[in-house]
């Protein structure tokens, strides 16, 4: 007990110094911390959304949606490939999407082999190592060919769509000018968006939830309005709800052009009314020019996410590759649409399945309440320890404060996020950190009662209590680890603090107090101990 190896003393001192160094950046402003020279710890403790205020939004894509979109493009590709097949067009009939695959019947039985070859040439390998292809081509009967996207291909497609969706959302949120948004994929079909300190969460949701698929389609003027009202349209046309004037509009299925070729879009005014201007890239501009030239005098519909936002007449060919969209816009909604069009469409439809928004007032209140509770809890527990264990109580209080410092240091160094449950975890750690000291002190009391000498009692006390302390803390760590695995957001924060607190408290409560006790024993050589 008396001999405390020199290296151990140094290790303890160095640990404490390191803890101080890692805690210090928290007392600087963000700018000051960022200005620190390289090599100096500058990581600050992150505050969770529940403490600083902000929005947490969980979005989910429907894989069926990806499959549907894939089948639609595949149908179009198959059509083109059959027309432009090697050795002349292949006549076909009944090309349709059915049961998750695109199928068609080859008119001349002699063309079947060529059709299958053409389709097979479309397939691409999925990933770099696997032998899987993204589509499977089969003969349903002697003349019917089916082209089915494979499961691996669809998974790959979903994966790419989600990665792209993250990028699109990032662009949209950047437009809002908020700082430090967190946008991460979660699992296969989910995206978590966290934006701190937002004044207007509705604007955020309006931006990230919309697909923003823009299409220009010709209005089918020959369609029967009565049938359209029932939702029925002639072949090659479709019924689309009209956001502008209410009711529905029948448009051609094939789009003249889509928003994919847009390179810019800005909110603007025409005759004092908010409109949205747009500009195509050179290829899109040419297509737009050609389409408008061919259809002068006819009405066309501008469709956003399956809703007509306006259906103007093409008065003259639009050759410059740019134009404006009129609709029932307000200044805000025109700005919103411009942002959506600029940042591109989401490759897959996303729905909000969870949203948590905390106002900045509540966050500030929570921090204040948490800080007061932490400080007072520490003081009360310290007082209780001192009146219960006297000198040894003072040692455990020193350990308690060091523990608080270490928890902060480790969390700062890891760049961990402090949440409100995290603060609760901290307060709990304060109550629990003294447990190790209680175990040791009680054991020393027992040994003293048996009439053993001071040094021997202390020695036995530390030795016997250590095993119990280890066992008892392992169970806490098990609980904390499970919490970290299964918990979401704030609970994870709680588990992190708890785990760090448990580990550091064993160090401070056992090792550090032991050093203090050994110093005392060496300098005073006490014959009796009041405990």
């Amino acid at each position: 007990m008396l001999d405390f190896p020199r290296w151990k003393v140094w290790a303890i001192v160095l640990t404490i110094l390191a803890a101080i160094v890692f805690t210090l950046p928290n007392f600087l402003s963000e700018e000051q911390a960022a200005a620190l020279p390289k090599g100096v710890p500058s990581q600050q403790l992150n505050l969770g959304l529940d403490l600083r205020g902000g929005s947490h939004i969980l979005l989910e894509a429907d894989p069926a949606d990806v499959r549907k979109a894939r089948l639609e493009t595949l149908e179009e590709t198959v059509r083109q490939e059959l027309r432009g097949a090697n050795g002349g067009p292949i006549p076909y009939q009944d090309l349709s999407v059915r049961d998750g695959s695109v199928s068609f019947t080859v008119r001349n039985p002699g063309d079947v082999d060529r059709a299958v070859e053409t389709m097979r040439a479309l397939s691409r390998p999925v990933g770099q190592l696997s032998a899987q292809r993204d589509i499977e081509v089969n003969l349903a009967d002697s003349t019917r060919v089916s082209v089915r996207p494979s499961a691996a291909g669809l998974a790959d497609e979903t994966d790419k769509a989600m990665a792209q969706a993250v990028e699109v959302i990032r662009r949209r949120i950047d437009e809002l000018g908020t700082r430090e948004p967190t946008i991460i994929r979660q699992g296969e079909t989910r995206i978590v968006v966290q934006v701190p300190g937002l004044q207007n969460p509705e604007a955020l949701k309006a931006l990230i939830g919309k697909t923003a698929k823009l299409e220009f389609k010709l209005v089918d003027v020959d369609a029967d309005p009565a049938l359209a009202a029932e939702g029925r349209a002639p072949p090659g046309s479709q019924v689309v709800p009209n956001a502008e004037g209410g009711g529905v509009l029948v448009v051609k299925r094939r789009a003249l052009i889509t928003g994919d070729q847009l390179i810019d879009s800005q909110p603007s005014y025409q005759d004092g009314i908010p409109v949205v201007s747009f500009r195509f890239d050179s290829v899109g501009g040419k297509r737009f020019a050609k389409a408008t030239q061919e259809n002068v005098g006819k009405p066309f519909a501008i469709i956003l996410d399956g809703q007509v936002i306006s259906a103007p007449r093409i008065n003259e060919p639009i050759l410059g590759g740019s134009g404006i969209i009129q609709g029932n816009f307000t200044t805000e909604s025109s700005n919103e649409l411009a942002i959506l069009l600029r940042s591109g469409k989401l490759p897959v439809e996303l729905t909000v399945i969870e949203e948590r928004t905390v106002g900045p007032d509540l966050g500030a209140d929570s921090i204040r309440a948490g800080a007061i509770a932490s400080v007072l809890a520490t003081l009360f527990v310290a007082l209780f320890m001192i009146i219960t264990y006297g000198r040894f109580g003072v040692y455990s209080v020193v350990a308690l404060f060091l523990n608080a410092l270490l928890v902060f240091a480790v969390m700062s160094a890891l760049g961990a996020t402090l949440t409100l449950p995290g603060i609760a975890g901290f307060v709990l750690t304060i109550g629990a950190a003294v447990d190790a000291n209680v175990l040791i002190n009680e054991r020393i009391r027992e040994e003293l009662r048996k009439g053993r000498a001071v040094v021997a009692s202390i020695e036995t006390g530390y030795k016997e209590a250590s095993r119990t302390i280890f066992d008892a803390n392992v169970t806490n760590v098990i609980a904390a680890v499970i919490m970290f695995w299964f918990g979401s957001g704030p609970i994870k924060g709680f588990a992190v603090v708890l785990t760090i607190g448990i580990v550091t408290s064993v160090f401070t409560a056992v090792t550090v107090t032991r050093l203090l006790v050994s110093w005392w024993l060496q300098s005073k050589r006490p014959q009796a101990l009041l405990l």
Partner: protein
Amino acid sequence: MRLLKLIPDNTNIPFLKWRNIAMGLSILLIVGSIALVAIRGLNFGVDFAGGLMMEVRFEKPAQLDDLRTTVNSAGAGAGNLQTFGDPRTVSIRLPLPPGDDAAVQKVVSAVQAKIKADNPDAQFRRVETVSGKVSNELIRDGALAMALAMLGISIYIWFRFEWQFGVGALFALIHDVALTLGFFALTQLEFDLNIVAAILTIIGYSLNDTIVVYDRIRENLRKYRKMGIEEVLNLSINETLSRTIVTSISMMIALGTLVVLGGSVLFGFSVAMLLGIVIGTYSSIFIGAPILMWLGVSPQSFVPSDANDPDAKLKAKLAAERGQV
């Protein structure tokens, strides 16, 4: 200077004498808790029930009945209102409207406008919406986490001690968790993700207590091989009693501070934890220890620690057989 001693030295309280009464009481409480949870149910927050939740802060203590009328007049379904931590803060829960996010936004705006019209001072501090899909996942994950934590810890104890200790610990845990759930069913305090975190922590800390007692039982079983099991258990509990009480009080001091000063969001969490500490302390004395007796733990359950020779196990077995004859 005299130090505070909450527990006098060398107590000899016959805890085990009350084991039947304690066990009867505990089983009664467990059954009662399960019945309460089954009949009254837990007041699930949006995390688990799904739906929409708003936290509103007023300048004056809120009149819940008036406010309920106001909320219901927004036409978004029947609101479930309760004060939240303090009388000025109210949480309003509403079912999720069918449709997409725009529909949710409409409901939120409508309710907020109605409340604002009557109470210009109202502050909307928090809005949460959780879809049914997510809430089901949260329920599943929460239940799984609790079950896994209990099982994992019991298995750890089984490895470190003997199987009887693992079973005892598991039963003590089931006791603690059941009673905590029963408390939430009784008081209808909101049961959300934070409470699950609290219960997981209770699982960890209640075990902390049990382990300290078990550790001493193991030590004493090795030391006093001639002593009767009831005596050993009593001795062990008495020897660790001071520590049990001091630690529990220090935890209660910390948690009590949190209950009073921790703010509205942490209130349920702190109350659950505080209760858990009390139940956990009780269960490690009155549940964890007696079970060992019923499961037939005896000094022969442990290989003598002083003998390192390979025949120790055999000798212990022989000794056990001799004891039976």
